[in-house]
Structure formats: C-alpha cells, structure tokens
C-alpha cells in the first residue's frame, strides 16, 4: 500500500509532463535536432561518465580508508569528508571559477610569474564541471559505502586473509562486492543529481540536456517542448535504473549488524599519504569554498543580519525538519512493506517512486504545481462554492503542498539508505520475532528500527540537507512569507550579487554541520 501511495504521488507531476506530448512542437524539435541535439547528448554523456567514475573512485576509496584503516587524523576526517554534502553545487562552481578563471587570483599570479600567454588548463571546459560536480556529489557514495563497510565488520575480511588473500585482494574480492548495493545506491543518486543539475552547468555555460530544457522554456516560451525533453530524460533514467537492477542480479546481501571495526594500521608514509589524500579532498571541496564564503559574508553581515534574516533561518530549518520526517516515514513504510511482500530488490512501483529526483527541479516543480492547481480548481473550488464559501486556493501555496513536493523530489534520497540497510538484515530475525508472537508493527519497532538506526540517520541527514538546499520547488510553491535561505541565495545570485549571497549560503552550510557530526558519531558507537 505505501508504495502505491508514493508511486501515485510521483505520478502527479509525471502525468503532467507526459501530457505535454498532446501538443506537437515540431518546429522546436526540428530546430533542436538540426543545431543542438548532437552536442547536448555528447556533453551530457561525457558529464555523466566523468562524474560517475570520479564519485565512485573518490567515494569508495575514502570510505575504505576511513572505515577499514587507521591513519593520522582519521577520526575527524571521518566526518569532515561528509561536509561537502552541505555545499550547494552552484556555490562550489562559482567559487572555483572565481578563483581559477582568467581574472581570478590563481591565473593572475600565474601570469605574473610565468608571463602572459603561458598555457594554463581550461577551467571553464568539461573537466571543470566534472570536477565541481564530483566534489559535491561524492559524499553520497562515501556515506553509503562507509556505512556498508562498517556494518560488514571484520569477520569476513579475517576469513579472507586466513585463506591467504592480502588486504587489497580481500577488499576487492570480499568487502567491495558485499557493499555493492550501497555503492550502487550512492552512485545512482549522484548521477541523477548530475542529470538534473542546472546550477553548476549554467555557471560554467556547459550545455547539457537540462540547459536545453530551460532554453526551450525560457527562450522559446514553450513549456510544452521543455516537458517533452524532460520526459526523454526521465525515460533515460528509467532505463538506467532497470539496467542497474538487472546487473545486480539475485544476490543476497544479508549480514549481521554491529561488528568490530577492521582497523588496518597504515604506518609511516602510507599513513601520511592516506591523511594527505583525505585532507586535500576536504580542503578542495569544503574548506576553500567555505573560506571564500566567510570572506564575503564578513563584508555584508553587518547590514544583512536582522530579524528578517533569522526568519529565513527559522523557515529553512522548520521546512527541512518537517520534510525529513515525512520522507523518513514514507521511506520506512515503503521499504518495510516491500520486504513483507518478499520483494528484496523492489518492483517497478518502487523504482517509479524514486523518479522525482532525476528531473530538473523547475520542471518537476511546475508539474507538481500544475497538478495541485488542477485539484484546487476542479475539486476544491466547486466544493467551496457548494458550501457557500468564496473559492480560494487551498493546495497551491500551502505548507502541505510544499512538503508533498519535497517528498516527491527526494523520496529516492531517503529510500536508498533505508532500503540498503534493510537489505542487510537477515530475514531470520523477523521470522524469529514473529514465531515468538510479535505483530508486524512490533517487529518493525523492536527488531528493525534498532538495527536500521545508522541507515535512518543517513537518510535523515541527506534529506534534511537536500531540502534545505532545494530551490525551484521552494520558490514556486512556498506560502506567502515563507522565504528560506535558498530563496535568499537565489535572489542574490540571479542578480549576480554573489557577495551578498555568501551569508545565507554560509548559514545553510553551518546548520547542516551538526546533523553530519551527530550521524557519524552515532554510526561509530
């Protein structure tokens, strides 16, 4: 049942998007095919491939180091490596370009040292975009892989080593395949976000499928053509998800929770190398952009902090917490419901329920808004008239609609960690509890919830941070007066006033830090 409800919710905007095929936009399509489509597809594939490879390598290697090894600084790098999650991609993109472009300090110093005309890598090309997106998206892979590796414990690794495999081999042959569902969940989140990204690619002026969607909408004034393009993107994501599911096969990934940490000691230069690697990732993906934000925020803090600003912080946090609770509840119900039915790898409904994440935010927001506006007009207004009230809007512009939008958009973010940690629990626990007379909900409460705590915390953190950063749906569906930090950032950046956007961006990053630390602490205990 829960999965049906969730799938129905997601179908609302998707139906609106699919209905766009009712109108022909031949001229626009012909134009796109003649002038753009080839380059767009090449660019998009290159981006997806590049980001996919980078986030997998970064996320898995970092997770292996912090979860399985011991080296200087591991204890704080462990959580510090999660922090880039709180940095919106458009912020890192802007800071990276600001520092590295021709007019930035790095190239200016370069020219002063080596003279004008000496080669410098083209930071505004595809390499730059891939770098920026990988830096903000690897935490998805890192976090999920880390959780999976930690929960494996050392038993299997010890067994592999007794059988004569060295550290690396036992990792590649035992730990890695066991962590595959979690890694796949992380990579697919990162790639869906890459496909939907508009902020970073537009700052780099890198044309992708998503920029074409916006161009059809804002340039040709055709929301129809934009929705048609978006539905192709959706099809692409759907196929990729099915392929991923097929490739995973029918393996089972159960194991017991809570085992002793492995903790290979990396000594001497190996330990230092590991520290240096982890540290440089934190530096590039978090410390440098936050340092730049701090620098700008100091200049504007005096004038911009006031009661209004605290109102923004309050709204952001409230919406984040409400959305996170709604999302966790939905994810847990759906995952548990699927498990009771014995669907370990999820049916198509479940895949459908997660599709909201892959759509460009504004297109999804308009789809949701259109669906709610339709309900207002077709169902609620006649009812209000029947009751003798003046027809007014009930859904659009209400907190409830905005929360529904967050649930639709971020369901797969909450579902990934919940589902993958559920998959690792042996069904025998449940069978034992049921034989002892526990009801379905007692099993959920007394067996699953305690075992799921790390997964639930990951999910909570991810969706909290994601909803607080969310821009297009918040902009379009927020009730009057419910401005958030993301709204403020949008208002400033869209006018090119990056210095004044720094303060809200910095606060957004800062309020995301405590949840990160709490989550990592708990998963260690």
């Amino acid at each position, binding site marked *: 049942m829960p999965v049906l409800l969730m799938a129905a919710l997601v179908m609302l905007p998707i139906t609106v998007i699919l209905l766009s095929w009712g109108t022909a936009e031949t001229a626009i399509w012909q134009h796109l095919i003649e*002038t753009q489509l080839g380059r767009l597809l090449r660019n998009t594939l290159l981006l997806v491939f590049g980001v996919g490879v980078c986030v997998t390598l970064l996320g898995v290697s970092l997770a292996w180091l912090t979860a399985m090894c011991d080296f200087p600084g591991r204890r704080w790098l462990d959580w510090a490596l999660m922090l880039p999650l709180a940095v919106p991609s458009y912020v890192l993109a802007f800071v990276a370009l600001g520092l590295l472009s021709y007019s930035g300090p790095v190239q200016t110093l370069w020219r002063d040292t080596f003279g004008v005309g000496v080669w410098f890598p083209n930071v*505004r090309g595809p390499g730059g975009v891939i770098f920026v997106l990988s830096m903000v998206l690897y935490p998805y892979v890192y976090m999920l892989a880390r959780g999976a590796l930690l929960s494996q414990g050392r038993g299997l690794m010890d067994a592999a080593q007794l059988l004569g495999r060295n550290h690396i081999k036992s990792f590649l042959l035992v730990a890695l395949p066991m962590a595959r569902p979690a890694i796949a969940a992380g990579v697919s989140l990162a790639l869906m976000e890459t496909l939907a990204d508009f902020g970073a690619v537009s700052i780099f*002026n890198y044309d992708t499928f998503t920029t074409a969607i916006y161009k059809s909408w*804002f340039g040709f004034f055709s929301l129809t053509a934009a929705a048609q393009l978006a539905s192709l993107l959706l099809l692409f994501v759907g196929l990729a998800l099915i392929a991923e599911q097929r490739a995973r096969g029918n393996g089972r990934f159960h194991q017991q929770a809570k085992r002793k940490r492995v903790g290979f000691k990396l000594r001497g230069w190996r330990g230092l190398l590991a520290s240096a690697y982890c540290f440089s990732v934190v530096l590039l993906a978090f410390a440098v952009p936050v340092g730049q934000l701090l620098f700008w925020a100091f200049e504007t803090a005096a004038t911009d902090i006031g009661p209004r600003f605290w109102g923004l912080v309050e709204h952001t946090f409230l919406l984040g917490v409400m959305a996170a*609770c709604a999302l966790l509840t939905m994810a847990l119900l759906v995952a548990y419901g699927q498990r009771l039915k014995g669907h370990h790898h999820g049916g198509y409904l479940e895949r459908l329920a997660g599709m909201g994440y892959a759509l460009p935010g504004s297109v999804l927001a308009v789809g949701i808004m259109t669906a709610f506006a339709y309900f207002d007009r077709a169902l609620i207004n006649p009812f209000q008239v029947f009751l003798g009230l003046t027809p007014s809007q009930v859904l659009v512009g209400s907190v409830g609609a905005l929360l529904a939008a967050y649930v639709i958009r971020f369901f797969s973010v909450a579902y990934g960690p919940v589902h993958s940690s559920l998959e690792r629990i042996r069904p025998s626990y449940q069978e034992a509890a049921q034989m002892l007379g526990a009801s379905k909900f007692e099993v959920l*409460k007394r067996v699953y919830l305690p075992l799921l705590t790390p997964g639930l915390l990951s999910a909570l953190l991810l969706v909290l941070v994601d909803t607080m950063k969310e821009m297009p749906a918040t902009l379009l569906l*927020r009730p009057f007066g419910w401005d958030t930090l993301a709204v403020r950032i949008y208002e400033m950046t869209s006018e090119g*006033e990056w210095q004044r956007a720094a303060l809200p961006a910095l606060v957004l990053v800062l309020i995301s830090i405590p949840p990160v630390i709490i989550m990592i602490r708990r998963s260690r205990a």
Partner: protein
Amino acid sequence: MKGNPIAGSVRALVALVSLFLLVACGENSPPSGADAEPSITVYSSRKEHLIKPLFDLYTAKTGVAIRYITDSAGPLIARLEAEGASTPADILMTVDAGNLWQAAEQGLFRNLESPTLSSNIPAHLRSESNQWFGLSIRARTIVYATNKLSADELSTYEDLADPKWQARLCLRTSKKVYNQSLVATMISSLGEAQAEGIVAGWVANLATDPFSSDTTMMEAIAAGQCDLGIANTYYFGRMKKADPSLNLALFWPNQSDRGVHINISGAGVTTHAKRPEAAQALLEWLSSPEAQGQLAELNQEFPANPLVKASEEILAWGDFKADKVNVEAAGRLQAAAVRLMDRVDYR
C-alpha cells in the same frame, strides 16, 4: 543495543509536524472578514531587495498591505496560467519586455484604462493595448577596457562583427534573455539575414567561450582576457561603485542611427485580479515621480517616467540616444533570435 531512541523521536517529530501543519493552515486561510483589510498580492521576478523598500513606503502612505512572492518569470507565468481564475495574484511584475509580452500573449494581463499610466510611461515602453507598463529602463551597451582602447575606435553593435576585433571580444551566453532581446531588436530593425551575419561575426571574434554573467565577463575584460564586450548598465554601475578606479568604461553605440538597445522591468494587472482597482492604483503610484526615482536608483537603472531624472551616478555616464523601437518587439521576435543564435553557434 540501547533502547529505541528512533521510535520515540519519530513520534515526537510526527507530533511536531502536525502542529506546524495546523499553524501553517491557520496562516493560509484568512478569516472570512479578510476583505475588510485591503491588501494586494504581487508575483514578482524583480527581487525582494529591489521592490520591498517601495512596497513598504506605499503601505506606510496608504495603509494598503502588499504581499508578494519572488521567482523567475517562467515559473511565475506558469503558475498564473495554472491557477486561472482562482489565482491570488493581482499584479505580475517581471524584468525584460520579452517576459511581459509572453504573459500578455497568454492572456494573463487585463487592459488598463489609466490616463496616469499612459502619460507617465512613454508609448514605446508599454504594450499597445496597455496591458503592461515599463517601470525602469536599463541599457545594454558596449563596455571596453580603457587601457586598451579609446572611445573613438568604437562605433556600433554591427561594427563588433568586423574582423579587426578578432579574438578581442567577450560576450555573455546567448541563453540570457538580455542577449536574446538585443538580437530580437536587431532583427526588427535590420532584418533577419543581416542580423544573422552580424551575430556570426561576433562569434568569430570571440576571445574565449561566452560567460555566464555580465559581471564575470567584465572582470575578464578588466583582467585583459579581451578588450570589450556588451553588458547591462547596472552591472557596470555596481562594479564601478565597488571599485571606482576600475579600467572599464561605457560606450554608447549607434548614436547616429537607431540608438542604444534598452530594455525594461515592468508590470501589469492580472486578468483574474481580486482587487484590480487597488492594483492599478499601486502601478500608477510606481510610475509617479515620487516612486520612480527610488525604483530606478535601487538598481542603478533609468526611470521609465521621462520627467524623472536619473541618479547622479548614472547621469555621470553621459547622455545617450536610446533605440525607440517598441520593446514589445523583443518578445515577438525572441524565439527567432534564439534560433538565429543557435544557427551561428553562439552558445
């Protein structure tokens, strides 16, 4: 394994959520006597910090409360369209004539019979059927590096296609509506074929890939990556204000023919406005000398009302002849402009 903290906190949070929902719904449904307190609802793609001071002033003066949400023009137009007759919006305010034209095209504005607006706002800055009205003007003009060029080497937008500017020109992306409007008005006055030749010439002269904002483009010009580019005046004003010694200057092109390309920010009263008279009164006030000076000054723009003088800072840029083609052309020809720029591979 310790107790079960999650279940407890889930319960607490569910309670919290329900509470907030109650509060939120309470805020949302005004008491039935809401009509007694006059208020106007505005959907605006002009940002909060550029409109709120004026709205506050108006509320203080008249007692009429104004509530608003801000977003990009595209989503706001889509929302107005989807809401239809039940929309709470009385006014739609956007930047760029193209967006205003598009909203009018979709029947979202009503015709206004307002002698005040008609006399305050010149004809080329409003729609022919008086559906929307420009409230402030920005010029899109040539910016050049003063250490590399002097003004007498410059003449027109068309001249930037000349091979002498090879690898010396910087441009912002064609995806920005300001460039689409510039090219649309060029199509309107020169014809599509000639405009295409000129834009192709610009692309051939580019020193580097197009930039994503006017500001980063001007920074590149100042740093020496290229010699000149095309930018909106208020971005230039903002940079100069932050650093008056910056090696950039404005040049007003096409002074001997059609004049400098201008665009507007503007607004209209929506078709399904709940308080159309109050909304019209607000627009009339915004076009009045009292509001115009501040409206323009907030963003270093030119007032749309010709009787109002621009701020000192802006007057210092010198007087210029503006293109008098109706800004409506920008909307009508926008799609053609986008196709043209795609054909010549202007990213």
